[in-house]
């Protein structure tokens, strides 16, 4: 009887087993990496809107405060999307003939709301409250990124539960003086502003010039955490009711 297998059979079998093992490891790690990638989390995603609204222009160039349009942000769960009326307070006069703003004027004339689309969309079983975050000194920047640099609004952070918990376990790393909560820039670029200096001198009267700015930020955040009574909130019930 002839031989059942050629001499290559052993190597073939071993490499097949190796390939299966590699395939398994590869599939698993691909899945774990993909779940964290912007492809799955939606980070950096730009949502198409009825009008190509530019935060860069309104916040960065014009310097309009967040609360002018997002009126509920300080004391309700939702920040709120501006009504057409708010747009029209300015655009009745400015760019009143612009083609780009035709949908706003139509909405105004037909008394029908513009259908803005949510960019930072949390699952429905998450109870997120803007008011308490603002009250505790967590800046818009921490979750929404630097809106003054966004010609079109995009999702700045991954919004995974891991990401939420990173801050909820140690909220101190994101706290800033209440006076700077609505500032669109990261705290480390605000160390020379008056509100920052004021807040710092309040916490540490004999302030030394020689200290580095990162040490200053750390010191200020430690003090603010005490002052605003920040606590780590990781109970399921904090976000899931």
């Amino acid at each position, binding site marked *: 009887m002839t031989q*059942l297998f050629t001499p290559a059979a052993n190597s073939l079998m071993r490499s097949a087993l190796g390939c299966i093992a590699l395939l398994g490891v590869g599939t698993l790690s691909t899945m774990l990496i993909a779940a*964290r990638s912007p492809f799955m989390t939606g980070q950096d995603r730009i949502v198409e809107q009825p009008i190509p609204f530019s935060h860069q222009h309104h916040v960065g160039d014009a310097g309009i405060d967040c609360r002018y349009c997002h009126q509920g942000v300080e004391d309700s769960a939702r920040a709120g999307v501006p009504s057409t009326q708010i747009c029209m307070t300015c655009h009745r006069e400015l760019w009143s003939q612009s083609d780009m703003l035709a949908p706003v004027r139509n909405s105004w004339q037909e008394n029908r709301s513009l259908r803005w689309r949510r960019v930072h969309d949390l699952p429905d079983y998450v109870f997120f409250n803007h008011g308490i975050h603002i009250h505790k000194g967590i800046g818009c920047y921490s979750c929404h990124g630097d809106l003054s640099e966004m010609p079109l609004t995009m999702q700045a952070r*991954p919004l995974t539960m891991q990401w939420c918990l990173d801050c909820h376990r140690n909220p101190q790393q994101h706290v800033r003086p209440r006076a700077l909560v609505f500032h669109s820039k990261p705290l480390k670029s605000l160390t020379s502003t008056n509100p920052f200096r004021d807040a710092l001198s309040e916490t540490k009267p004999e302030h030394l010039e020689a200290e580095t700015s990162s040490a200053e930020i750390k010191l200020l955040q430690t003090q603010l955490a005490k002052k605003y009574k920040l606590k780590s909130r990781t109970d399921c019930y904090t976000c899931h009711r």
Partner: protein
Amino acid sequence: MSSEDRARTDLLPANASYESVSEQVSSIVLKKPTPRSWKFSFLIGLLMLQALLLGIGWLFAYGVGIWGINIPIGWGLAIVNFVWWIGIGHAGTLISAILLLLHQEWRTSINRIAEAMTLFAVACAGLFPLLHLGRPKLFYWLIPYPATTDMWPQFRSPLIWDFFAITTYATVSLIFWYLGMLPDLATMRDRAQSHFIARIYGVLALGWRNSARHWHHYQKLYLLLAGLATPLVVSVHTTVSWDFSVGIVSAWHSTVFPPYFVGGAIFSGFAMVLLITIPLRRVYDVKDLITETHLDKMAKIMLASGMTVSYGYLMDAYQAWYLNEPYDSYIYTNRFSGPYDYCYWALILCNCVIPQALWFPAVRRSTLFLFGISLCIQVGMWLERFIIITLSLHRDHLPSDWAMYYPTIWDWALLVGTGGLFLILMLLFLRLLPSISMSEMRELVHQKGGSNP
């Protein structure tokens, strides 16, 4: 001494040789035509399997609301079936691991079948907890993996212990079964009549060449695995029983659960081995390999584990009385005089009364009686799980919550369907793989000092 010799000869045909044993077992797969009864059973199995597919499909489309479960009976037939199937698997591990370590020679001709039965029963059992999840597509949440939610399973919950117990059980059983089959797969390779079939068994045999070194490694590993599998006989069903006894439901919160679950598992497991081997002996004519002595020994184990189970029922009742706690004693009296009393008395009849017939040697050696008793035990053990789960829930501490549980057609479809899955897997195993361990039978021939080729 003389009685031991007689027992040894009882396990083998009088004129058994290495060649005759190998021929008898391998010809079932390689030479004999597929029996008509095999084809008929396969058809039945396929039909039953359709019920499983339909039941799962409907479940995925409409959710667990299609079952009879309600509040307060949140665990219905799915969990009953799960515990029942997992229990059936236990005989395989007991036969292959504990009886091996105890040098019980009579295990050699039935261990392969029992191990296969274990694997297939675990496969059937494993389906149910997954189907019972409200969202089965998220089943992987049971596995601890670095999720983007930064969440891990609740390690303090018996449900996650259960997950680990069952996956460990399935893995160890599979490795044990496959490892034990290696020398036999090589025999099949050498005896195959066509080149193609020889190559298939050749690949499965992983290059087994019967060398002394192979045997040296093999026996060491086999013993090691037997040692590893031994605690599993006790641990798996203990963990399953914790699903109940760690909870605070009155009739569940009891320390007697682990031993009495394990006893019940071995009870139903041996009944299942008998249900498989009795027709097998007849159809494939292996009465001289799986002899009446084998049946007799299995029946004795069944009798012993049956007594354990009866003791469990007795202690359950005793505790309910001794605690002198109105809720506990109500749940117990509700079992034998409540709306499901017929289930309870059927259970006592099937599990405690009928198996007493096994005290008589003539019954232990009669295939007809054994088959009937084994069937009764399967029904009884299923009823036991039904009573523990449903009857403890349906009348809880708040009478306004009381409800009855009636399984719907979809509940039954899954039970029938997993029966079909089990049947199909078992039939394929009997048709395609050596169902009796040839190498161990040859060893037995050698020890008996039978005729050498």
